[in-house]
């Protein structure tokens, strides 16, 4: 079920009504759990079984890990969880990719082999909930956390519908304590939650789908010769803004929906396009994934504890896997490799030039911020392009100043992209050092109403169809 659909509005109204009319906390949680299964099943009912399977396996593995002292047995138990979760992810998400590459490798070696084309449907949000359950088992294994005492709480943690299919990826240590006491939003929390939902939907429906997707689709969909440099850049900028508005929009909705139910979810984005450097970017972009990769992969590989070379290798490996997490394609690996290279280069440059005073000036910080944004945009080319030939075509168009190439975009779309991208960058720089909550607090009440009304009326005017969020495919 999509947040930007009428069926979700009906679903949410029913859930909210039940949540606030039933007194028993256990009954409330049970309703939320069933509602979450309905939310997931409304897309493709059979795939709920995967959720149940993952939930049951990790519940029993964690229980067994708690009392088990033998290292070998603990490792076997952890392996079961890893095998189940990564196995499901591997089969559904990477099955076709692996087979394709296997066949490609055999053909390259001169062995004529053709495999029957498998038709595997990717269960929506599988990358998100497998990472979430994995983090629980890993935390128990490393004795960083205690297993949940209640199966209901644990099942709700895995399945909680606001963040089930596209994050934020919540840790058990953040969510399970919230299940211990009854959660009811105050009037102000509820109102602020509604504001968040409106903001998220506005980002998704009006900005991402309405203002940016057409230009982005046109430019990235063009394969017939080079593109005029201005159109190429506007297409890339359009996608850069679209991917943010789409994904941050989902996270904002998720936080708002959870808040209306009395639950708190962590931030997932914090003005990433005002990041100064790539280490800063990854502290602001998809924060719950980057901290997951940091805690369970980068640090497990040794982090920055074994000298510069190992640190750089660890960074690169983490980013390559992070790239592959986003999709079963070599273009995503290339995107991860590019970001890994950015981080490696930044690490080395910091060691050499970190002490320079100009870096700390306003102009220096702004210049570095814009350079970061520029390089992030180049990375999105590989993320969005359907294959390498399209990516190279666009890359060459971005730096072709001969005035040739096809002019693809209507003037209106060029204006829309420019206005949204400039507005987005300005808002990110405005919120660079502060949270949205603090900024809103300083706005007079009438201004909040004007902003809120504009966003809601914009949504009504846009009449957007229920287009899936980009990150659902991951």
């Amino acid at each position: 079920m999509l947040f930007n659909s009428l069926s979700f509005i009906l679903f949410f109204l029913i859930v909210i009504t039940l949540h606030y009319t039933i007194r028993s906390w256990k009954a409330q949680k049970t309703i939320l759990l069933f509602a979450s299964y309905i939310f997931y099943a409304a897309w493709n009912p059979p795939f709920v079984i995967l959720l149940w399977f993952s939930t049951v396996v990790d519940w029993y593995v964690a229980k067994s890990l708690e009392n088990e002292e033998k290292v070998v047995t603990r490792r076997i138990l952890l392996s079961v969880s890893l095998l189940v979760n990564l196995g499901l992810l591997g089969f559904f998400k990477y099955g076709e990719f692996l087979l394709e590459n296997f066949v490609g490798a055999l053909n390259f070696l001169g062995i004529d082999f053709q495999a029957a084309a498998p038709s595997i449907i990717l269960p929506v949000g599988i990358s998100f909930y497998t990472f979430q359950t994995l983090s629980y088992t890993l935390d128990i294994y490393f004795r960083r956390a205690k297993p949940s005492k209640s199966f209901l709480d644990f099942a709700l943690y895995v399945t909680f519908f606001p963040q089930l299919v596209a994050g934020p990826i919540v840790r058990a240590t953040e969510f399970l304590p919230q299940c211990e006491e009854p959660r009811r939003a105050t009037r102000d929390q509820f109102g602020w939650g509604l504001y968040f939902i409106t903001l998220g939907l506005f980002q998704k429906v009006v900005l991402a789908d309405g203002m940016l997707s057409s230009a982005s689709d046109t430019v990235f969909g063009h394969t017939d010769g080079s593109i005029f440099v201005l159109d190429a850049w506007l297409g890339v900028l359009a996608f850069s803004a679209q991917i943010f508005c789409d994904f941050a929009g989902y996270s904002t909705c998720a936080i708002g929906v959870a808040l209306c139910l009395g639950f708190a979810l962590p931030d997932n984005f914090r003005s990433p396009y005002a990041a100064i450097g790539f280490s800063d970017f990854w502290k602001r972009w998809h924060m719950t994934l980057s901290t997951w990769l940091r805690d369970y992969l980068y640090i497990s590989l040794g982090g920055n504890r074994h000298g510069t070379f190992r640190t750089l290798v660890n960074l690169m490996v983490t980013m390559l896997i992070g790239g592959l997490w986003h999709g079963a394609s070599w273009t995503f690996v290339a995107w991860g490799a590019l970001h890994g290279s950015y981080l490696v280069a930044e690490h080395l440059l910091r060691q050499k030039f970190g002490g320079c005073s100009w870096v700390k000036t306003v102009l220096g910080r702004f210049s570095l911020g814009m350079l970061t944004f520029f390089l992030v945009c180049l990375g999105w080319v590989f993320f969005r392009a359907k294959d390498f030939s399209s990516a190279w075509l666009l890359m060459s168009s971005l730096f072709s100043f001969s005035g040739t190439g096809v002019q693809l975009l209507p003037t209106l779309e060029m204006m829309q992209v420019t206005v949204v991208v400039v507005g987005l960058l300005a808002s990110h720089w405005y919120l660079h050092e502060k949270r949205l909550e603090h900024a809103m607090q300083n706005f007079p009440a009438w201004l909040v109403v004007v902003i809120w009304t504009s966003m809601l009326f914009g949504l009504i005017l846009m009449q957007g169809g229920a287009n899936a969020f980009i990150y659902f495919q991951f």
Partner: protein
Amino acid sequence: MPSSTSSFKTYQLERIIPKHHWATLALATLLSVSLLTFSWEFYCRSLGYAPTLNDTKDLWASRRVLIEKDPTRTVLIGASRMLFDFDMDVYEKEMGERPLQLATVGTNPGPYLEDLANHPKFSGTVIVGVVPGLFFAPGGPPMKSPLDHLKYFQDWSPSQKVGHYLGMFLERRFAFINQEDLTLNQLLLSFKISNREKAKFHPELPPYFYKIDEERQGGMTDIAAQDIKLQKRIQQIWIPLFTPPPDKKKMSPSEKKAQVKKMADMVLEKTKKNVDKIVARGGKVVFIRLPSTGQLREIENKYTPRAGFWDRILEETQSPGVHFEDFDQLKGFNCPEWSHLSKGDSTEFTKRLIPILKKLRNKGKI
């Protein structure tokens, strides 16, 4: 990638709530949005808009799904002419069966025919509306549209079904819910900002000029049937849409002719295969060429002459066909914007078409 160390403490995650009276602000917002929305609704109605269903993929899927329940039904496929010009009430009254309307605007019906041909149980009659320029289109939007509709139907989820019925509830009540004309993007287009001289993109599509009901019975709006200014605007949109794009490869006329024939052969081969499959299961296929007039008819005659296209469809597939120019009673209808009949004329046209279809039925051809 943050390179700091992590913290695994169990803690109570709380969110900051900005210090405002959010419940009051929410109510004030609700009030102002309601005011704006109702004002917008009244303004749209004052412009002549009335509540109408949107011709969405959900609406199409809601009709397509009925084949699963009754695979012997008569199905209408084709493009907008089939959607506007074929009166299902008249057909039901005269032929004793309610057909399913699956035609979609700007569409090559080939993928729909293939879908029915590959359906394991379908054995009904298919009435295929032929607009040669679309029927023989090898790709682009005429092919994308039906493929998108079919994909949408195959993946039609329970939540989309619920959303569809909720959407129809609202569409029947509010005139401003009009995805053809009144979305924010359509409103921005009305500023008519001129484009760069060398810019290349798809030609403009016509504005809202038809309505549709729950069973997908389409029909031209009264405004479009009467407003000459609107008709002229739509006529000017048809010209580039129905004119083939310039030849990039600079082929000689004979080379071009050979290429067009080659593409037509491919389409016909596929069509024959699909027709044969349906006929083999006991189904029937009949092709219909609905009226077009004015400069558009001239363009059609120039680029898709009857002998090379319409006649070949019937010849290759050995199927019956009804061309509006072959029957006196079907000639002489006026298409206000050259491509479609008005609502009243569509009823009259279907009434005149029925005896021809009955004859075909009596001969066992449909």
